């Protein structure tokens, strides 16, 4: 064994640290990963609120004969489609 090969020890340590970190992530409280997805959803909902109101009036403008229930249903479908595209709602 050459003396110089001791230099590989820090590398092994680094790799071990990486594995430990992956293991740590897996076992961590799900606060850590829900941040991304949950917050994302909430932000998406924020944005879509305005879009929903806007869409409702646009639909009404396009066809004033639609009833309130019909408009609500159409907007509901519209938002659902956006959610599906964003892989939030399950595709039926």
């Amino acid at each position, binding site marked *: 064994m050459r003396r110089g090969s001791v230099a590989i020890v820090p590398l092994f340590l680094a790799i071990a640290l990486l594995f430990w970190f*992956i*293991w*740590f*992530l*897996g*076992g*961590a409280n*799900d606060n850590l*990963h*829900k941040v991304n*997805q*949950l917050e994302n*959803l*909430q932000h998406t*909902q*924020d944005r*879509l*609120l*305005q879009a*929903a*109101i*806007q869409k*409702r*009036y646009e639909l*009404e*403008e396009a066809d*004033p004969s639609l009833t309130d229930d019909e408009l*609500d249903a159409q*907007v*509901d479908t*519209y*938002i*659902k489609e956006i*959610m599906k595209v964003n892989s*939030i*709602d*399950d595709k*039926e």
Partner: protein
Amino acid sequence: MIKKALLVVGLLVGTISTATQTTTTFKAPTQTQQDEYGNDYFQREATISTANFKVDNFWNNFNENGTASSNYKTISRSGTFKITTSSTSACTLDSTLDSEGCSGQKPFLLNDEVLNNPMPGTTDTFEVAFTEAPNYNNNDYNGFYPLDILRDAKYYQDTTNPDDPTTGKTGFFGFITRSFDYLFNKVVGINFFGQQDIADVQEGVRSTDAQDRRERYIANIIAGLEKAHRVTKNANAATATQITAPTLNTPASLLHYAEAQKSTTTTQCKFMFINLSSEGAMCRIMSGFGMDAWMPFFNLTHTTQIQSNFILGDTENALLAMTSQIEDVPYMKDVGGSDENKLSFLQNIIKPMVTMVDIMKNMMFGTDKKEIVSNPVERVYEFNEDEAMTMTFPITNDGTQIDDFAHFKLLKIRSVYGDEINSCTVKKVPGMISPSAWEDEFIEGGTLSHKSPNSRVWKKEVWDSDQWIDWCQEAANKKGMFDYLFDWSTGGFINPLNWMKGMFSAFLSVFTGQYEITDFKNSIQRGLILDLKKVDLDPISIRNTREIKILNINTPSSDK
């Protein structure tokens, strides 16, 4: 079998209940209210809620203690929105128009008494007579005034460069001017802006300021005051910065461009294809001795052009121009007028014969009746209620501050006009035994003056207004012999004595000549009545502009 079915149902219910689903719900809007600029607004709440939201934990594959996924039953957000609607009929016509140009507010003040006097049989339709601000009277229920106050010297975008070349946006004012010129050119072939002389109230002369004010006024009528310079409720005229500094008791008004009218009469003298000077000897001999009537290919025409730029006329034309665009029906009418007699080749050949026949006809039946003072004429323009232009008017109680705003649909424009004579020039056409010709001018409130050759014998020193109008009227209308025969005003039966007199007078006129009006100046009196229907602004109408703003978003709710 039943077990199997239950299992299927169970599985189905299970899948549905665990599928991620987003639902959107709206609450009913709140009562409509008015903001400080008179726009309608209401609030509405919307909720978006996602059920069964699953958060997957990919990393749990690397740790035996990790959770594979967590499921949130509902995650929802709700927010309140303010939906504001402003009446911007004109502005919505052009999608490239800079939205800053249009607020929908009109430069008129509506007397609050108007709203207490709906038209008979209705509760929400009002007949509003448009009058000038100087006639303001707070007891009047039909007052309607041009308003141009409460905004600093800034009114609209630069007129020299109305459009923004970089953004391609149309300027507020550029749009208005162009659409007007387009309409007027198309319909009556005149240039609406720039051709008429605008007099300044204060200086009494045409000025660029006055022109500027007029253009601003017209732009304001149709498009509404610019957004940045809207007037607000309770704004007080006396305390505000104004371009024309008001005295303390100046009612909220005023547009300082004068009502001016110009009528030009031009005489054109033409022989064959040659235009002769109307002041030249040839022309004067021909017209002075009445030879133009007998001479083939000699043509003497008087062309009268009337140009007027009344506030009422402008208001009417502006409203009509805009409604024309909205309804795509040209409602324009000619603002000036001219008449020219042109004879064809054949007519020129038989001219002496025609003239003779005319004289005979005039002797028997009188000349064609011309009313120099016309009876008031009413023109009514009715608009389709669905398509009608919506307008927002400030309401005032005493003319010094804006108490309220109201929205109306313009259902009808009624334009009433008649004219008033200011001066009249009468010419005596020589007859067979009296070859002398003369011209007299009568001016309201003044004495008659001799214009040309002063061989006038008939004298009357003092004119009261009726007499001289009658005189002009008589010059315009000559009675024929049959008119005297059936002169109902003298008892309604055939009066032989009167007839004899009339025959003699009509016969005599052929020999002694007749009076003829060569020129008269009159001023047109106008009235403008608008039929307005009070409405709430509809947020989905294309006549209005809708604006949605987030008021607040509630704290997100989520449960596991």
